[in-house]
């Protein structure tokens, strides 16, 4: 009884064994529904404590137990209930506070995130702006690696690498177009002007014939140039059919030496063959590649000297080389030597000879064979072009 005093929240009800009320500390709280009874002398367990409402609507947590009164041996019911309305109200206010805090936290986080992401991606926007300013004419600009955040630097470096390659191809392409236009200009000019001069006044039939013959030579030159360019364009896209066959190196080189026999003898150049083994290649393309090299070699070899056609077989490749003594190719010319229309020595580009496509064709043919062409200059003043044909084709 005393224990409940000063504890407004605590309700204590005592009832006799038959349920007659003995004591109710807070009658205004109303009556409680029936509760499971814990036997006398036992601790009330968790299940016996129940959340309920009194008949007056007060939320309580209550438990009930039997007790023996020692003096009389009489059994009484003890019901203890604790008013939980304050706790519930407190929990509700907690809930609201937590909800408010979580909501404002989420909004704050979103705002902060937005700001941070925008700040963080500013370098990416900068890169995008730089990328916008890159055009075909300004491919060499590239992106600023230093301004990119660490995570994007790899990407920027890779992107710049791609730009460099594009720039290089683009330059070659523009150079090629310019060279092509230039190379077309000369024969077309010859054709146009000599025909106009001839037509300016009446001439003898022989003069007309001479003009026409000269025209035919120019046309044939143009046709050959077109043919070579078409070949190169197709080889680039692997549109050239390669008919692989097993060929005898010595026979093939002999055939080419026979072909150039007269031309070589005319310029006092000797052709020598040192060859063995077989080669897996397209006969027509192989002859075309080697004859381009031999024609060049004869052109640049002085009378009395020897051009050597050699072939040897290793495990990985068949190696064919054409070497000639003669003026050394300048170091500066080497990187562009295999470019289309490039001539190492512009002064020597007499109109009748190859239009600067010969070595480009050799390179294309080697690519079609999965091989490569290399230029080396030995100590004995020899220029050596070497063709590597991989053994597995």
């Amino acid at each position, binding site marked *: 009884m005393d224990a409940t005093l000063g504890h407004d929240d605590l309700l204590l009800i005592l009832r006799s064994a038959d349920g007659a009320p003995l004591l109710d500390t807070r009658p205004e709280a109303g009556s409680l529904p029936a509760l499971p009874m814990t036997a006398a002398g036992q601790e009330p367990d968790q299940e016996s404590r129940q959340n309920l409402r009194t008949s007056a609507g007060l939320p309580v947590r209550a438990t009930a137990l039997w007790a023996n009164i020692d003096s009389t041996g009489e059994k009484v019911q003890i019901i203890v209930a604790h008013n939980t309305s304050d706790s519930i109200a407190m929990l509700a206010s907690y809930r609201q506070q937590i909800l408010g805090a979580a909501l404002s936290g989420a909004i704050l986080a979103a705002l902060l995130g937005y700001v941070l992401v925008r700040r963080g991606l500013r370098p990416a926007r900068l890169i995008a702006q730089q990328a916008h300013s890159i055009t075909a004419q300004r491919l060499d600009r590239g992106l600023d690696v230093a301004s990119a955040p660490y995570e994007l630097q790899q990407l920027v470096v890779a992107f710049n690498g791609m730009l460099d390659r594009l720039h290089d191809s683009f330059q070659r392409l523009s150079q090629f177009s310019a060279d092509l236009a230039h190379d077309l200009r000369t024969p077309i000019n010859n054709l146009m002007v000599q025909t106009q001069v001839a037509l300016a006044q009446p001439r003898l039939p022989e003069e007309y014939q001479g003009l026409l013959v000269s025209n035919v030579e120019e*046309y044939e030159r143009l046709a050959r140039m*077109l043919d070579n360019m078409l070949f190169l364009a197709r080889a680039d896209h692997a549109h050239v059919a390669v008919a692989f066959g097993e060929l005898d190196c010595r026979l093939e080189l002999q*055939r080419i030496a*026979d072909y*150039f026999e*007269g*031309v070589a003898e005319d310029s006092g150049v000797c052709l020598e063959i040192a060859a063995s083994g077989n080669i897996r290649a397209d006969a*027509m393309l192989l002859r075309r590649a080697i004859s381009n090299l031999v024609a060049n070699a004869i052109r640049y070899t002085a009378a009395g000297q020897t051009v050597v056609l050699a072939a040897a077989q290793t495990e990985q490749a068949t190696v064919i080389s054409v070497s000639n003594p003669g003026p050394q190719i300048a170091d500066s010319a080497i990187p562009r030597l295999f470019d289309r229309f490039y001539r190492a020595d512009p002064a020597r580009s007499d109109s009748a000879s190859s239009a600067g496509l010969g070595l480009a064709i050799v390179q294309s043919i080697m690519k079609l064979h999965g091989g490569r062409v290399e230029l080396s200059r030995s100590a004995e003043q020899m220029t050596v072009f070497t063709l590597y044909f991989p053994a597995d084709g």
Partner: protein
Amino acid sequence: MRILLVEDEPKAGEYLRKGLSESGYVVDWVRTGADGLHCATTEDYDLIVLDVMLPGMDGWQVISELRKTHSTPVLFLTARDEVDDRIKGLELGADDYLVKPFAFAELVARIRTLLRRGPIREADLLHIADMEIDVMKRRVTRNGERIDLTTKEFSLLYLMAKRQSEVLSRSLIASQVWDMNFDSDTNVVDVAIRRLRIKIDEPYAPPLIHTVRGMGYVLEDRT
């Protein structure tokens, strides 16, 4: 020999008609595929020269229609020479295929080959003026005197003798004698002809090897 020429381009048609007429053929020239097919099926021609790119009905369609009823030899002219095109042309029944730009001598040579019925009779002994070529023994004499030739010089002379009076283009000679099937910028053929002339023609009369300016070379007795 009658040739039907199907070519829509006026300039090309005109010079082909003229050139082939002057080479001794009777040439009928039509400008469309439909006309070409009509003429080819209603009249009798020994050969048809057919351009691939024609308005309306193209060369492919003409030949596939024509092959249903006729087996007249067809020589295709085209500016396209993709491998696929070649295969298509030959599969449809074209007998030969010539890519523009071509040498006129080349066209005439191809036409002659197509018109040559049956296998070519390869004579063992060839006579031109006072020159005798013994093919089996690979021996050449003029005026009874033995002339020494290298293997390739003999091949070149034999090619020209076999096709005497026929103008041979440089690319045809390079292809037949050295098996070099591409146009080269080098003057290999001219050099070879000059060297052959020194042995065959210079010590004797009349000269047999003649230059046809702008076209190629021909071997014939012009006396």
